C-alpha cells in the first residue's frame, strides 16, 4: 500500500522537476539557445493540454458508463486538426499577423478592436473555465482519496481540504512561470516545455496501465476484445444525437478553449509546426484513448460493484498490487490536471488583464494627461497574478458548491458547450467579411444566455441557483421555456438539447444581425485583412508620426516591454533609419510596428489606445481618412457645380454676343433705313417742290404741261402717302392696336384678288401657277389683311425674281386645322446671310433695286402673328419660297 506521505513526496519531487525544466527552458530561450524548444515535437506535445484529468480519469469512467461514446471527445479535435489546411492554419496566421494574445483579443481585433466584445468573450471564457478547473481539483482530490482509502468509498476531511492546497500550488506555478515576464510575443517557453514533459508523462501513464491491462491482466488483444464484447458495454448502444453532438462540441472546444488558443496560436513559434502537429496530435489522441475501453472493461470486471469508474486507472493497478504503476498513473493524472490549470489560468488572466483591467486603468489615467504615469508593466503583471489567483479561487469555490458529486465527463461537457458559443463569431470572423461586431455580440449573448439557462444553472440545480419551480414549470411559468425542453420539445438528451438550441440560435442571430447591421470602417478593414490574411498582412491604418515624440514612445514602451527590450527595439529601428546613436524618427511605419509589439503584451485595443494617447490627435484613423475622402468628394462636387455654372455663363455670354450682333445689325439697318427713308421722303419732296415751283414761276405753260406736272406732283404725294401709310400700319400692328374684321371666306377668291391687285399696272411678265382645286379651302380670318399679305408676297416675287422667265407657284395645303400657302418663285432666292434678317423691319435684300422701304415682309409677319399664323422663309427649294401658315379658324390673339 502506498502511503499518502510517499505520494505527497512524489508529487513535490515531480513539481520540483517541472520547475527545473521550466526554469532551464526559459533561460535557454532567453540566451537564444535551445532551438529544440521550438521544435514541432514540443509544439505537438504542448497541444496535448487538451487532454486534462478528464482524459486521465474521466475517459475510463465515461467508457464504463456509456461505452465507446468517450471517443467522440477525441474525434472532434482529430477532425479539426486534419482540417488544419483551411482552419487552424488560417487561425494561426491571423494570430501571428495581428499579434493576438488570446482568443478574446482575436475576436476583438476582428470586429474592429472592440473592447466590449473582448470583455464579453473574457467573461464567457471565465465562466466556462470555472467548472473545468473545479473538475481538475476534483480529480486530484479524488486521486488522493483513492490512496487514502483504496476501496474508493470514503473520503477523509483532510483529503478534501487538499483541493485547496493543490489550488494554491497551481497558482504559484502559474504565477511564477506564466507572469514572470511580459514578453512581446507572449510566449512562455518554460511553461510550454514543462507542458510537453507533462504530456509525455500522462501518455506514458495511460499507455502503461493499458499495456498492463491488456497483456498483464488479460491475455492479449483477442482476449480483451472478447472481454469487451462480454461486458455490460459489449454492444453498440451509443445515442446518435450525442455521438454527433459531442464530436462537434469537442471540435469546437478544441478551437475555442482559451488554453488551446494559447498553446496553438499564441505560443506558436513557426507556422510550419502545424504540418507536423496535423498528424502527430491526432496520433497522440489515438494513443491516449486506445486503452481506455480495455481499462474500463477490466475495471468493471475486477472491481466491486459501486466502485467509482472515474478512478479505475488508479484502483486497478492498486488492486493488482502494482504500486509503482499506480504511482505513475497518479502522476499522469496529476500532470494533466496541473498543466491544464496552469495554462488555462495564464490564458484567462491575460484576457482579464488586457481586456478588463487595462482599459479601466487607462481610462482612469487618461484624465491625468497625455503621458502615462507609473509603471504599466507592473500593473499588467500584478493584474495577471491576481487574476490567476481569482480564477483558481473561483474553480475551488465551484468545486465546493457542486460538492464534487457529478461525474467528471458531464462537468467537462458543460464547460465545452459554454466555450463553443464563441465558435460562430470566430468562424464567421475568419471566413465571412460580412460578419459585424453587433452580430458577434448578439450571437454571443444569445448563445451564452441559453447555455447558462439550459446547462450551467440546471447543472447547479440542487444548490438552488435555479429555483425548482423554473425547472418544473419553465421560466415565468411558461411551460415551453423549461430549461430542459425549450419550445416544448421534450425527449432530447440534455447535452444535445442545450448544444442544439444554443449553437443554432447563436449562429442564426449572429448571421441575421450581421446581415442587417452596418460595420464601422475599421471593422470592415480588419475584416478584410483577417478574412484575406493569406493575400495581405498589412496593418490597418497608419499613424502619422510627425507629432509623436520618440522619447515619449520610448518611455511608454519601456514601461510595457521592459527597458532592455524597448531600447533594443528602438536601437534596431534607429539602425534601420541610419541614425545610429539617436532615437529613431517616429515614422508611421515605426509607430505601427511599435503598436504591434505592444499589442503582443497588452492586447490590440489597449496598445492602440496607448499609442493613441502619445501620438495624440495625429493618428490617422480610418474615420479621419473617410472624413478627408468626404471632403474631397464635396470639393469635387463643388467644382463640378462650378463647372456647370461656368458652362452656363459661357452659354449666356454666347447668347449675349449673338444678341449684341443682332442689335448692331439692326442698328446698322435702322441707320440705313433712316437714310433710305429720308432719301425716300426727300426724292418725292424734291420733285414736288421743283414741279410746284415750275408751276408757280413759269408763265405761259401749255395746259398739257401743267396737267403733266400736276400729275407728277400728285403721283409723288401718293407715293409719300403710301410710305407713311406703311409706316403707320406697321406701328399700329406692332403696338397691337389693330382691330381684326373676321369673316368666313375661301382661300381661292382671296388669292384671285391678291394676284390681280399685285399684277395690275406692272405690265407683269411673271406667270403664276396655281392649283385651283386645292384652293377651295374655307377659312375664317380677316380677309383684307390676309390679302395684304398675299399681295405683298406676290409683288415681292415680282420685284425680286431674277429669272429670265419669272414664274410663281402658289400651293395651298391643309393639315390638322392649319392651312399653308406656299409662294415659290424660280429666281435665285435670298442669300443665306440675309435670310435671318428678311423679316426684320427696314430690311431690304438689295437696297437699290426695288423701290420699297423694306417694310413689306415685316408687316406680313406682324399681320400673320395677329391672325394666329406665321410666315417663314423656306430654304433649298430653288428660288425664294415663303410659307404662310394659318389656322383655319382664326382666334383673335389676345394682347
Amino acid at each position, binding site marked *: 500500500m502506498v502511503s499518502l506521505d510517499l505520494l505527497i513526496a512524489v508529487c513535490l519531487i515531480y513539481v520540483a522537476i517541472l520547475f527545473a525544466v521550466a526554469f532551464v527552458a526559459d533561460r535557454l530561450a532567453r540566451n537564444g539557445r535551445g532551438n529544440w524548444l521550438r521544435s514541432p515535437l514540443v509544439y505537438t506535445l504542448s497541444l496535448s493540454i487538451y487532454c486534462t484529468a478528464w482524459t486521465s480519469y474521466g475517459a475510463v469512467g465515461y467508457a464504463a458508463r456509456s461505452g465507446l461514446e468517450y471517443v467522440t471527445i477525441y474525434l472532434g479535435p482529430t477532425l479539426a486538426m486534419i482540417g488544419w489546411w483551411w482552419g487552424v492554419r488560417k487561425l494561426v496566421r491571423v494570430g501571428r499577423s495581428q499579434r493576438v494574445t488570446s482568443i478574446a483579443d482575436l475576436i476583438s481585433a476582428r470586429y474592429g478592436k472592440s473592447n466590449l466584445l473582448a470583455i464579453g468573450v473574457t467573461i464567457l471564457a471565465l465562466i466556462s473555465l470555472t467548472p473545468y478547473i473545479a473538475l481538475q481539483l476534483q480529480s486530484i482530490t479524488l486521486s488522493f482519496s483513492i490512496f487514502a482509502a483504496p476501496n474508493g468509498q470514503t473520503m477523509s476531511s483532510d483529503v478534501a481540504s487538499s483541493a485547496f492546497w493543490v489550488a494554491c500550488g497551481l497558482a504559484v506555478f502559474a504565477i511564477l512561470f506564466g507572469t514572470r515576464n511580459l514578453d512581446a510575443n507572449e510566449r512562455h517557453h518554460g511553461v510550454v516545455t514543462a507542458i510537453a514533459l507533462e504530456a509525455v508523462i500522462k501518455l506514458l501513464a495511460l499507455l502503461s496501465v493499458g499495456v498492463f491491462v491488456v497483456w498483464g491482466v488479460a491475455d492479449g488483444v483477442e482476449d480483451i476484445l472478447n472481454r469487451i464484447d462480454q461486458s455490460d458495454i459489449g454492444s453498440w448502444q451509443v445515442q446518435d444525437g450525442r455521438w454527433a453532438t459531442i464530436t462537434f462540441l469537442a471540435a469546437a472546444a478544441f478551437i475555442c478553449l482559451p488554453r488551446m488558443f494559447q498553446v496553438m496560436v499564441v505560443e506558436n513559434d513557426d*507556422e510550419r509546426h502545424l504540418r507536423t502537429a496535423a498528424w502527430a496530435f*491526432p496520433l497522440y489522441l489515438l494513443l491516449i484513448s*486506445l486503452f481506455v475501453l480495455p481499462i474500463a472493461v477490466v475495471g468493471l470486471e475486477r472491481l466491486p460493484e459501486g466502485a467509482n469508474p472515474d478512478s479505475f486507472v488508479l484502483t486497478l493497478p492498486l488492486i493488482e498490487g502494482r504500486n509503482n504503476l499506480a504511482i505513475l498513473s497518479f502522476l499522469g493524472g496529476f500532470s494533466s490536471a496541473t498543466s491544464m490549470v496552469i495554462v488555462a489560468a495564464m490564458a484567462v488572466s491575460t484576457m482579464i488583464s488586457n481586456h478588463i483591467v487595462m482599459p479601466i486603468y487607462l481610462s482612469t489615467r487618461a484624465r491625468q494627461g497625455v503621458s502615462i504615469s507609473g509603471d504599466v508593466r507592473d500593473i499588467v503583471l500584478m493584474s495577471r497574478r491576481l487574476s490567476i489567483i481569482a480564477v483558481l479561487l473561483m474553480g475551488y469555490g465551484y468545486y465546493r458548491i457542486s460538492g464534487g458529486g457529478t461525474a467528471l465527463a458531464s462537468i467537462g461537457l458543460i464547460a465545452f458547450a459554454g466555450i463553443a458559443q464563441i465558435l460562430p463569431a470566430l468562424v464567421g470572423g475568419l471566413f465571412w467579411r460580412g460578419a459585424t461586431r453587433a452580430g458577434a455580440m448578439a450571437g454571443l449573448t444569445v448563445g451564452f444566455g441559453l447555455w447558462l439557462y439550459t446547462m450551467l444553472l440546471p447543472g447547479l440545480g440542487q444548490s438552488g441557483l435555479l429555483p425548482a419551480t423554473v425547472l418544473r414549470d419553465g421560466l415565468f411559468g411558461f411551460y415551453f421555456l423549461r430549461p430542459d425542453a425549450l419550445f416544448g420539445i421534450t425527449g432530447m438528451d440534455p447535452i444535445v438539447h442545450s448544444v442544439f438550441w444554443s449553437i443554432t440560435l447563436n449562429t442564426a442571430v449572429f448571421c441575421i444581425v450581421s446581415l442587417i447591421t452596418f460595420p464601422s470602417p475599421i471593422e470592415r478593414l480588419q475584416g478584410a485583412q483577417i478574412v484575406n490574411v493569406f493575400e495581405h498582412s*498589412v496593418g490597418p491604418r497608419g499613424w502619422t508620426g510627425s507629432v509623436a515624440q520618440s522619447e515619449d514612445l520610448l518611455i511608454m514602451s519601456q514601461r510595457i516591454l521592459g527597458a532592455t527590450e524597448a531600447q533594443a527595439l528602438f536601437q534596431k529601428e534607429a539602425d534601420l533609419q541610419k541614425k545610429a546613436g539617436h532615437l529613431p524618427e517616429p515614422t508611421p511605419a515605426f509607430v505601427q510596428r511599435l503598436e504591434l509589439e505592444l499589442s503582443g503584451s497588452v492586447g490590440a485595443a489597449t496598445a492602440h489606445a496607448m499609442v493613441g494617447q502619445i501620438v495624440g490627435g495625429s493618428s490617422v484613423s480610418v474615420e479621419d481618412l473617410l472624413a478627408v475622402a468626404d471632403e474631397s468628394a464635396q470639393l469635387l462636387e463643388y467644382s463640378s457645380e462650378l463647372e456647370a455654372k461656368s458652362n452656363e455663363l459661357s452659354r449666356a455670354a454666347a447668347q449675349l454676343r449673338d444678341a449684341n450682333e443682332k442689335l448692331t445689325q439692326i442698328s446698322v439697318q435702322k441707320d440705313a433705313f433712316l437714310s433710305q427713308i429720308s432719301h425716300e421722303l426727300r426724292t418725292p419732296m424734291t420733285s414736288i417742290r421743283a414741279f410746284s415751283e415750275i408751276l408757280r414761276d413759269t408763265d405761259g405753260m401749255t395746259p398739257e404741261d401743267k396737267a403733266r406736272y400736276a400729275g407728277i406732283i400728285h403721283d409723288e404725294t401718293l407715293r409719300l402717302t403710301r410710305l407713311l401709310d406703311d409706316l403707320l400700319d406697321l406701328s399700329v400692328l406692332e403696338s397691337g392696336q389693330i382691330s381684326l374684321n373676321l369673316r368666313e371666306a375661301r382661300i381661292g377668291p382671296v388669292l384671285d384678288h391678291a394676284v390681280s391687285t399685285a399684277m395690275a399696272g406692272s405690265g407683269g411678265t411673271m406667270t403664276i401657277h396655281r392649283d385651283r382645286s386645292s384652293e377651295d379651302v374655307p377659312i375664317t380670318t380677316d380677309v383684307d389683311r390676309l390679302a395684304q399679305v398675299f399681295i405683298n408676297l406676290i409683288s415681292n416675287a415680282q420685284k425680286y425674281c431674277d429669272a429670265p422667265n419669272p414664274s410663281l407657284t402658289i400651293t395651298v395645303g391643309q393639315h390638322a386645322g392649319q392651312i399653308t400657302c406656299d409662294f415659290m418663285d424660280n429666281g435665285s432666292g435670298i442669300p443665306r446671310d440675309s435670310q435671318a434678317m428678311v423679316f426684320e423691319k427696314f430690311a431690304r435684300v438689295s437696297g437699290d433695286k426695288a423701290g420699297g422701304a423694306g417694310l413689306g415682309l415685316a408687316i406680313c409677319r406682324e399681320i400673320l402673328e395677329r391672325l394666329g399664323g406665321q410666315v417663314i422663309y423656306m430654304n433649298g427649294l430653288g428660288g425664294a419660297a415663303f410659307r404662310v401658315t394659318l389656322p383655319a379658324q382664326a382666334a383673335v390673339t389676345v394682347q
Partner: protein
Amino acid sequence: MSQQRPPVFLERQSYRRRRLMDAARLLPVFGAALFMVPLLWSKGDDGGPAVQTSTAMIYVFGVWAVLILCAAVFSKFARRWRNNDSPHGPSSLKASTMIPRTGSSHPRAHADDDVG
C-alpha cells in the same frame, strides 16, 4: 498595387499541388462522414443483433489511423514546398507585395493559400 491575375493554366507540378490542397481540405469532411457511419448501425432495438463494441472499436480506430496516415502524407508533401514557391509559379507577385515585418520573426508560410 496592381494585382496580376494568376495564370489560367498551371504547370503540371503546380496543378498537382493544388489538387493536393483540395484533398487536404476534403480530408476532414471525409473523416467526419466516416465517423458518422456508426450512427447507421443497429443497436439491437430493431430486432437484429447489435453491433459488437469490439467491432465498433476496430472500425473507429481503423478510420482514425487512416486519417492520420493521410494527414501525414499531405504534410510530407507540404514540407517540400519552398518558402517563396507559391502555387502559381516560383516568383510569386504576392511575395513582393507583402510588407516585410522587421523586428519580428515572421517566417513566410511554406506555401501560400491558393488563389483559385
